[in-house]
């Protein structure tokens, strides 16, 4: 006579956990040692440079915010970052939309095309633009052959070439961020809007755009922060015509050895990035709360 097997012992009434908190210690130690400690050191350095006993620890920050030239550079840094972010959004959103909605089996190929430029050195890509924009470059030769201009245009070493170069480098970050969110968007909501009489634009503005806003925010913050710290493209394509904090930080280390002032500038850049991240996380959490 067969007997039924014993029922398995009941599982303990607690959530299943793969890892313990202590497993995070190595990563935490690494971050403390190589991220937090240098940041603290950098902050302390930014308050140095004042004469002994003068108590003027904020001199570097006061100089940065009150001197017309440095305040102008700070504004220029923000302007470049905002403009490049907008350019990447305008270029990137349609590409992301096309990839998600229409690319079908071509989608992996398009993703590869997007990522391919990121696999080459930023210096090589920037030199590529130099070849195109130079006075005897492809663009000038084409325009002159077409009879549209009589003399070569000075396309290199001006802000336009910097914006184009930066957008080329950073647009993939925007596209991939928006694509990731659009792929998860519920298309039935768009269909419902169309059934209820909304036109294509209204559907996009009232349904698609809000659904993709999280990706837009993520992409924007990525591009904004990366532009803030961008240096090589501005140096090679701008030739000094676009002055940002990153360029000045390089100068402080390379030429004047004013490490305290460079640290203050670095901290201001970091603060701008943190403000951007806080704004992004607030927008995302509000949307999720809804």
């Amino acid at each position, binding site marked *: 006579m067969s007997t039924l097997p014993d029922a398995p012992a009941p599982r303990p009434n607690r959530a299943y956990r793969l890892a313990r908190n202590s497993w995070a210690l190595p990563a935490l130690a690494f971050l403390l040692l190589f991220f937090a400690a240098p940041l603290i050191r950098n902050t302390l350095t930014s308050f140095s440079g004042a004469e002994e006993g003068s108590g003027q620890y904020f001199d570097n920050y006061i100089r940065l915010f009150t001197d017309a030239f440095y305040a102008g550079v700070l504004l220029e840094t923000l302007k470049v970052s905002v403009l490049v972010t907008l350019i990447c959004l305008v270029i990137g959103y349609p590409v992301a939309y096309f990839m998600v909605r229409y690319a079908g089996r071509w989608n992996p190929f398009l993703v590869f095309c997007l990522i391919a430029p990121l696999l080459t050195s930023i210096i090589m890509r920037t030199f590529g633009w*130099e070849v195109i924009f*130079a006075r005897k470059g492809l663009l000038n030769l084409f325009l002159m052959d077409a009879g549209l201009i009589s003399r070569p245009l000075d396309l290199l070493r001006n802000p336009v070439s910097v914006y184009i170069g930066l957008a080329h480098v950073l647009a993939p970050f925007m596209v991939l961020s928006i694509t990731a969110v659009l792929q998860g968007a519920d298309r039935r909501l768009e269909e419902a809007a169309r059934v209820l009489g909304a036109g294509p634009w209204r559907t996009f503005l009232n349904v698609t755009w809000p659904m993709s806003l999280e990706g837009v925010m993520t992409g924007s913050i990525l591009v904004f922060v990366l532009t803030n710290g961008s240096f090589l493209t501005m140096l*090679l394509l701008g*030739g000094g015509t676009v002055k940002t904090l990153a360029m000045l930080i390089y100068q402080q280390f390379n030429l*004047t050895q004013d490490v305290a002032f460079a640290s203050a500038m670095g901290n201001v850049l970091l603060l701008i990035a943190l403000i951007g991240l806080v704004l992004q996380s607030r927008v995302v959490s509000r949307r999720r709360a809804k």
Partner: protein
Amino acid sequence: MKTILTSTALALALAPLAMQGAAAKELVISGYGGLWEQAVRTCFEAPYTALTGNTVAITMGAPNQWINQIKAAPGTPPIDLLMIPSSGAFDAIKSDIVEPIDTARVPNYAEVSQQFKDFTKGMGSVYVYGAMGLMYDSTVVTDAPKTWQEFVDGTIAGKWRASIPGLDYGSSGIASTVWMLAHVSGGDVDNADQGFEDIAKMQESGNLVFWNNANELLNQIGSGEADIGMYWDGRSWAFIDDDHADIRYVNPEPGSVAAMTWVQKVKGGDDSAWDLMNIVLSAEGQACYGNMMRYGMSNANVTYDPAVAPQITRMDSIVIPPFEQIAEKMPEWVDRWNREIH
């Protein structure tokens, strides 16, 4: 048993070699890679090894890096001999990490040209110099400027598109532009207004661009961005010899700014660094190096290869800026350049 005997015999046979290896030292010098390393190994290390049995290891990096490494290990420096540009050499002196030249250990120092001795004051020696003259495309610039003033005036007049070192190239760039242009107009470190004004005027004319890394001018000449530019003589000649027959090089009057590389013995470094320094300053070693690198050498008795000799900027065609004072002025000049030039 057979294996043990074989191993023992092999060990006994190799013992002298191992002992010889232990006796030989590895002298650590600062420096670079590429052609520079080839020239140093061929012209300086080979005779040094023949003399002492020691070898040379090269620590690559940047002057600040080398100086910080030495300062971080007082008494046991990781570098025995610095081969370093002027700005770094002065920093090393200020940091008190280098020794005055022991002339008894470095007899070849006596053959170093006096103008370099006046410059280094015995706290090391210049062994090589480059001059920043003008490289130009002869198909566009048919009447090359003979003086620096002609270069400035011709640029403002639109005779050519010029390129000069930008701010981000570094201190030698500023010495070659701001100081030099001020110097030829009678200015000096404390009165560099004319230098800034000349650069600003050239820029306002729309005929001036800047190069910020050593290869950028070559790209600018090739792409038509510039027809003429301030550039190092050795690099210019290498470019000309690389199948660029239309490119020319000239040192305008009253001379070209010299960039010099020093050799300095590190305090606490191995004493055989003196032997290497003596070879680095020898006429034979420098002739070999100069012929390979096409730069001027500091030993007054160097004889260059006839094919290379015309490409070497003579010592009387160089101008040595007061680098120490320029270094002190650097924060002020950088700030002024940022506000006035771009």
